[in-house]
């Protein structure tokens, strides 16, 4: 009988711990998509079942440990080797319990969750493409109000905060310059890919997480039910900046989303216009682009982190010629490296627009301690031509 008492105590303890499940800081964060809600339910159910198993078995063990002690003079029962039939019967009991739990109590809901999770198309109203690259996310709206909108989302936490030289902000490591904006209540189909290594786009409150694989498209979906700002991180080790590529999503009502989309399309159109620029304008814009995209490896000063990340200050590429006699860019020139990348250096042609590439090349040639005399500046039009 005492065994049952112990089990009772175990269960009471468990019930007390159920309060814990109500408090999300000890559990998954508050779910805001159908999938995250489902995941939380599945998780809570599993946790309760496994906790019951654990504490019941623990109670039996603890009882045995205290009751069947040599120091208390307990004699080992003369365990006659059990007959095979008895042994089979007893060992089949735990087998049967687990069979029921695995394939009925847990297995059936799990089946439905998987089917729901993988159904990316039914009732989806818009498609976005997410590209992971070292170490930023790039978002592209493929249809709907924001069709054609495309931008890069970079960490904005300052270097001083990372190195404990400044007070850390509330959203330390989880803040970006351009968050992804999604309309509330719409099922958004997400196409996921990567440009260099594996990444994983993850927002805990969405319950969806999918690896971004270079060269392949993977799918997932989200349907955010509640307006708000949601934060997450890359979840697949992707190099030294792995901890520094957060995901931030603003879920807004449809009307607000439409306004945002129109504004963004307008901005993008203006930014993509090719116009002649002065050296100072190029350098000024280049500085912003550089510090957002390049400084993480080549450092703000341009000193790099040799041997993995070469210095730009005094670099042959940054000081050497960009264009040949025929006006075309040279192989292994500054332009070639920016557009096409090499080794660890990513290709930027899909990420930055013509003006940004022209600006950052000019910045690297005229700042960071450099003053190139051959091809001192590069114009957006030249980048446009180089792409063709």
């Amino acid at each position, binding site marked *: 009988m005492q065994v049952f008492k112990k089990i009772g105590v175990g269960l009471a303890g468990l019930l007390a711990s159920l309060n814990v499940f109500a408090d999300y*800081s000890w559990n998954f964060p508050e779910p805001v998509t159908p999938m995250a809600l489902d995941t939380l339910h599945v*998780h809570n159910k599993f946790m309760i079942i496994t906790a019951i198993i654990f504490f019941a078995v623990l109670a039996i*063990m603890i009882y045995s440990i205290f009751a069947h002690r040599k120091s208390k003079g307990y004699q*080992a029962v003369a365990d006659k080797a059990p007959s095979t039939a008895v042994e089979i019967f007893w060992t089949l009991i735990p087998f049967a319990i687990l069979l029921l*739990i695995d394939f009925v109590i847990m297995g059936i809901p*799990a089946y439905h969750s*998987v089917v729901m999770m993988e159904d990316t198309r039914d009732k989806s109203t818009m498609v976005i493409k997410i590209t992971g690259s070292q170490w930023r996310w790039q978002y592209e709206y493929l249809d709907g109000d924001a069709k054609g909108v495309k931008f890069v989302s970079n960490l904005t936490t300052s270097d001083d905060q990372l190195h404990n030289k400044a007070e850390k902000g509330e959203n330390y490591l989880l803040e970006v310059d351009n968050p992804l904006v999604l309309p509330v209540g719409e099922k958004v189909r997400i196409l996921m890919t990567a440009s260099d290594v594996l990444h994983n786009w993850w927002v*805990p409150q969405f319950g969806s997480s999918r690896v971004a*694989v270079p060269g392949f498209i993977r799918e997932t979906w989200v349907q955010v039910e509640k307006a708000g700002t949601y934060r997450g*991180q890359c979840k697949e080790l992707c190099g030294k900046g792995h901890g520094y590529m957060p995901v931030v999503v603003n879920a807004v009502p449809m009307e607000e989303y439409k306004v945002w989309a129109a504004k963004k399309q307008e901005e993008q159109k203006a930014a993509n216009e090719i116009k002649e620029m002065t050296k100072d304008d190029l350098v000024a814009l280049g500085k912003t682009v550089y510090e957002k995209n390049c400084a993480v490896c080549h450092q703000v000063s341009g000193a790099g982190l040799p041997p993995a990340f070469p210095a730009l200050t005094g670099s042959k590429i940054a000081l050497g010629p960009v264009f040949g006699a025929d006006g075309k860019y040279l192989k292994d020139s500054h332009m070639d490296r920016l557009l096409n990348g090499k080794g660890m250096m990513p290709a930027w042609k899909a990420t930055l627009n013509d003006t940004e590439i022209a600006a950052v090349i000019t910045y690297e040639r005229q700042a960071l301690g450099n003053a190139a005399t051959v091809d001192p500046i590069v114009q957006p039009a030249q980048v446009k031509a180089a792409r063709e």
Partner: protein
Amino acid sequence: MSTTTVAHHEEHSDHPTGIMRWLTTTNHKDIGTMYLTFSLVMFLVGGLMVLGIRAELFRPGLQLMNPDFYNQLIGVHALIMIFAALMPAATGFANWMIPLQIGAPDMALPRLNNWGFWLLPPSAILLTLPFTLALFGIGDGALATGWTFYPPLSVQGGIGVDFAIFAVHLLGVSSVMGSINIIVTLFNMRAPGMTLMKMPMFAWGWLITAFLLVATIPVLAGAVTMLLTDRHFGTHFFDAAGGGDPIMFQHLFWFFGHPEVYILLLPVWGFIPQILQTFSRKPMYGYKAQVYSLWAIGALAVVVWAHHFFTAGMPVPALLYFMYSTMAISLPLAVLFFCWIKTMWKGSMSFETPMLFAVGWIILFGIGGLTGLVLADVAADAQYHNSYFVVAHFHYTLFAGGIMGIMAGVYYWLPKMTGHMYNEKLGKVHFWLTAISFNVTFIPQFFVGLAGMPRRIPDYALQFTEFNMISTVGAFILGLSQLLFVYNIIMCAKGGQKATDKVWEGAEGLEWTLSSPPPYHSFNEQPVIK
């Protein structure tokens, strides 16, 4: 008559002394001792690395190291703990105890045995050299991809990746040789009358482990070789641009990697029941059920690999198959847990250090097993995957289930190996410090994982701070308590109270019929099992 026997015996005990004894030895006990010593040293090295990691994670911000160095630490820590600490420990026990337990004079292939061991130190050097050089500012360090080598990151990485690939090759060759040796020994050298179904449970655990190693190590070797050619010879096995697929590597890697979990655990599942029966003074329950369960787990181990990367994207039928097959592992495991506890039930238990470790092992490994069951659920796994929840889970299986099991074995057999009793009081202190600080380290990691902290990040958002601090404090206590373990072992090897042949009151089995320590050559006359 008796004088000739002695002379005969001494002639065989003759062996070189000093370093040559260890370099040239073909004696299973010497080789076992070397494996165990190597394992202990590497356990401390791997532990030191993780203290660096935990120190960095004590508070948000970058304190001690840059992110690249952090990434090297996590990968090398894992490779060392798995390949250079846990696996050699299990092989060391196999060398020491299998011949003693089955009544054989030595292992079947003694020269292979020697070579198997001596491949380990070079591979440990390959593994740690780039890392050590980087500490002195030479080169760009060890692999920074985590222990899983996932391309394209590993294709992008520096020469440290090549070092790790060759280290894994050598370790793999060593493991396969050790496994062949164990299979041959178990099939051919059992004492007369010892049928397979009368073998000690430890021998069964190792037999299945050995088959798993022979089946899966070549796959790992193939995968890392393909990675090597992708890196240097322009092949595109794992590069989509050339028609390859990065996820293909994950399939190959985990085809090895999942059975590897059981490779680390099966030997422990073998000797824990022996410890339980010794200190419960009652034969183990359900011998046959345990053997069949071990086989079932061995078979399931090779067909569930893809649950390690559900989030990489798979068709629905594949997801369902890998989910349900993974859950199925809990069935034989439940039988094993039942048999272990039933062995204790109504025994006459005493709690010397090995028993404390064995009982603590059941409880903590139970947590690892149950959280593993939860991880099998594909939908929930999207949340757990690569979060600290997983880190906590596999430390419950591999530290509690693996290393604490090994510690139980060390305390259990140390008197037999050295001929001296260890310091019981110190052993108990070591157990309680280890068990408590282990939980202080890893329970908070379940919570930060659920709250959304990804693994393998050198710095974290502020909401995770408190739990990480607790975890770091636990890790340092855990690390420092292991010094007691080392001290206890060294003192026990040097001297102490003489151990009897049987050592433990309830010990059963052939190894306890020999003197403590056993003679250089074990059974000169084969025992006969009735």
